[in-house]
């Protein structure tokens, strides 16, 4: 089930909240667990057993580590991680590996055509971080299997992140306060995410799908840039919209997740971009791969090796295809360049140049990310840079630009903190009449947007789920 759908918004979530708030505290986890399993089974009735198994392995591991005198800690950790990674590897990468082997050795092993279990990349990373943290003594092992399962399977974060670590919510898993304030903040946060997903991401995503599959054969330079601009907005508003919804629902249920995005498109360098984009993933790789490999406190060559390892993994985490690996390596190279050469120059750039530099490279990155077909990737880049005598501008560009100007403008504004700053200013005004006026406007806007969002979901023409490869 996706959050932005009629069944979730009007049936599943309200019913879950109602029961959750009605039952006494000791049953709240039970309600949450039942609804989470239902949520998962809605789309993946079979693979739910895979998730249960993966969860059980790490839970068991945690219990074994409880005994301070237990000798084979490292061995057991390796076993647990091997099981986790094998499942992820088998279900996500086997067909890709077979294709690579077939290509290299000229054989033709048949593909397995296994469907990717939804959310496997997210929950595998959560459950692995738990085992490692328990091994490191960072957190105490969870005694109650159902509490642990509730943490892994909790539906707000199950299928599209953020990757929540056990240490972030282990206390709230056993005791949390449910206040009206948190409920309200959470609800509004959820709505922000829902509006971002349905009204912006789906809309510009539709534009991207028109341009990227355009059958006229040739795109003008401007159309190609309009297309990739649309995709850049789609992936940001879709992904951060999901994170907003997750964080919002978490709050309504009494959990405080960490932020996952921090205005990535205002970054002043690629290094800065990755501090702001999908934070829970980049910190995961930092804490569980980069630092254990020695991080940056090693010889330069080893440091370079470490960065490449981390970024190849980050790339392939996003999907089993060459373009994701290239995309990861692309960022690996850019980060290395910044670290060892460019940073001292970038610091002296004027602000506008820092932003232009970053956005340009990030946009090129999205082109690599968007096409898993290398020849399509090449020809799209060709259109963007006018290689092959395609026109600079054509009526297709003007038509779609005028059709999507308003949404692109709103998306541009919401990619920066401007709206938040204005809102905070307005909410600080201490004047009864202005306050009331702002309140009325906000109520009308929120309700209006919810009604329009509902109208999109009822018409349900275009509502893609982007994370089917993650």
């Amino acid at each position, binding site marked *: *089930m996706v959050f932005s*759908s*009629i*069944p979730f*918004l*009007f*049936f599943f979530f*309200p019913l879950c909240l109602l029961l959750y708030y009605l039952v006494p505290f000791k049953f709240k986890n039970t309600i949450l667990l039942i609804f989470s399993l239902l949520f998962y089974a*809605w*789309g*993946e*009735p*079979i693979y739910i057993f895979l998730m249960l198994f993966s969860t059980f392995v790490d839970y068991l591991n945690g219990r074994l580590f409880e005994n301070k005198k237990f000798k084979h800690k490292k061995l057991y950790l390796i076993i647990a991680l091997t099981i986790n990674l094998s499942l992820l590897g088998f279900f996500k990468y086997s067909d890709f590996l077979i294709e690579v082997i077939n290509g290299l050795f000229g054989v033709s092993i048949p593909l397995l055509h296994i469907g990717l279990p939804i959310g496997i990349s997210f929950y595998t990373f959560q459950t692995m971080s738990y085992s490692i943290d328990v091994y490191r003594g960072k957190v105490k092992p969870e005694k109650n299997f159902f509490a642990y399962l509730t943490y892994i399977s909790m539906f707000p974060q199950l299928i599209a992140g953020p990757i929540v670590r056990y240490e972030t919510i282990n206390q709230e898993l056993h005791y949390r306060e449910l206040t*009206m*304030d948190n*409920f*309200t*903040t959470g*609800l*509004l946060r959820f*709505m922000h995410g829902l509006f971002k997903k349905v009204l912006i991401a789906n809309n510009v995503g539709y534009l991207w799908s028109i341009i990227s599959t355009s*059958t*006229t054969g040739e795109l003008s330079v401007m159309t190609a840039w309009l297309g990739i601009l649309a995709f850049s907005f789609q992936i940001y508003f879709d992904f951060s919209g999901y994170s907003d919804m997750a964080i919002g629902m978490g709050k309504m249920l009494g959990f405080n997740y960490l932020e996952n995005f921090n205005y990535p498109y205002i970054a002043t360098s690629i290094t800065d971009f990755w501090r702001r984009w999908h934070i829970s993933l980049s910190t995961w790789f930092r804490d569980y791969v980069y630092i254990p490999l020695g991080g940056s406190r090693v010889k330069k060559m080893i440091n370079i090796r470490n960065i490449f390892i981390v970024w190849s993994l980050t790339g392939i985490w996003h999907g089993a295809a060459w373009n994701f690996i290239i995309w990861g390596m692309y960022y690996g190279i850019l980060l290395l360049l910044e670290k060892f050469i460019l940073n001292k120059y970038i610091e002296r750039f004027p602000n506008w140049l820092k932003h232009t530099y970053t956005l340009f490279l990030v946009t090129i990155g999205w082109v690599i990310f968007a096409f898993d077909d290398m020849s399509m990737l090449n020809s799209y880049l060709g259109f963007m840079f006018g290689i092959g005598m395609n026109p600079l501008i*054509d*009526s*297709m560009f*003007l*038509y779609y630009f*005028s*059709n*999507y*100007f*308003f*949404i692109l403008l709103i998306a541009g504004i919401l990619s920066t903190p401007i709206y938040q700053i204005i809102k905070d200013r307005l*909410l600080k005004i201490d004047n009864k009449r202005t*306050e009331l006026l702002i*309140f009325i406007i*906000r*109520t009308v806007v*929120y*309700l209006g947007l*919810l*009604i*329009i969002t*509902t*109208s*999109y*979901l*009822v*018409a*349900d*023409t275009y509502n893609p789920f982007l994370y089917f490869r993650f």
Partner: protein
Amino acid sequence: MKKRYNKIIAVALSLFVVLSTCLFLFSEKQIFSENENRYFQPFPKLTFNSLKKGEYTAKLQNYVADHFYNRNQFMNIKTNYEKLIGKKDIGGVYLAQDNYLIEKYERPLNSDAIIKSLNNFYHSLNYINMNLMLVPTSITINQDKLPKLVKPFNQLDHMNYIYRHIKFNTIDVSQTLIDNNQNYQMFYYLDHHWTTYAAYFSYLELMKQNLMEPIPLTDFEIKEVSSDFKGTLYSKSNDYNRNPDKIHLFLYDKYNYQVNYVSSKIIKDSFYEMEHLKKKDKYAAFLDNNHPLIVITNQNIKTNLEIVIIKDSYANNFIPFVANHFKKVHVIDPRFYKLSITDYIKENKNIKDVLFLYNLNTIDSDNGIVTIN
């Protein structure tokens, strides 16, 4: 203070959700949607298999969206919002000027397969007089009314490409449709079909090419039978602020016809099924929408001339004109007629003419044509 305001907003949003849910639960469920011309998803039956494959939940999702309270109103809200933010096409339909809705036209993909299939068909029956009429749609005839900057793929290039490679007679009606669009309306505002006037002027072209004498316009009694036709494009775009279409019948009282809907074993004495005019899809009044095989007999024709018309729905308002010149008109829709058409023609020895009539949109998407035999 501010916190209290936030609470009121949260309550308002929650109320909307709860109210919508309750209205869904307690409202009467429609089985058929007139507006969308399709059956709504019924409440799915739970079986182990459908649950395992995820079909059950997918159907449940459609059920909830189909029966959502005030579904049509919500779809109209979406359209109005999109118009407000500057979109000029919605649901594959251009919101054009002068009250027109115009269906999009994508680059055709199957031209060569269609040419090959039609030529093969001709070769297996080459003693027969065969005609191909491909009708341009509103996007070509009303091109000047499209939103600014829209440059659709050129339909006439596509038509000419096919015509160059076809080995039998071809009939180009584009010029007559463009010329007559000045004085008569060639396409409905809100439906993807052509009007009865457009069918009449195209019939003149068919007659001219085959050296036959057409019936002059003045011999028909032209009767307006509906002024409230809101067709397929109206439903696709959900743009409800447009004026409905009029439907005209061209009645000719000199002849008596027998219309035999062969597969449903129903025989009528008129081309028009008037009860459709009370429903939404009023174009279905012409020959009762689509049937696999219809045989029309003109009892007043003394010769034995018979014709086969292989067609899409554009032919439905065109056939009444042709029926004035043949003893029998055999109407075959290959989307639904699954037997061999060559066998059918060989069995009916009086058939000496074949007409293919398609609009340029469906000729490419209709897979019946590529596999015709």
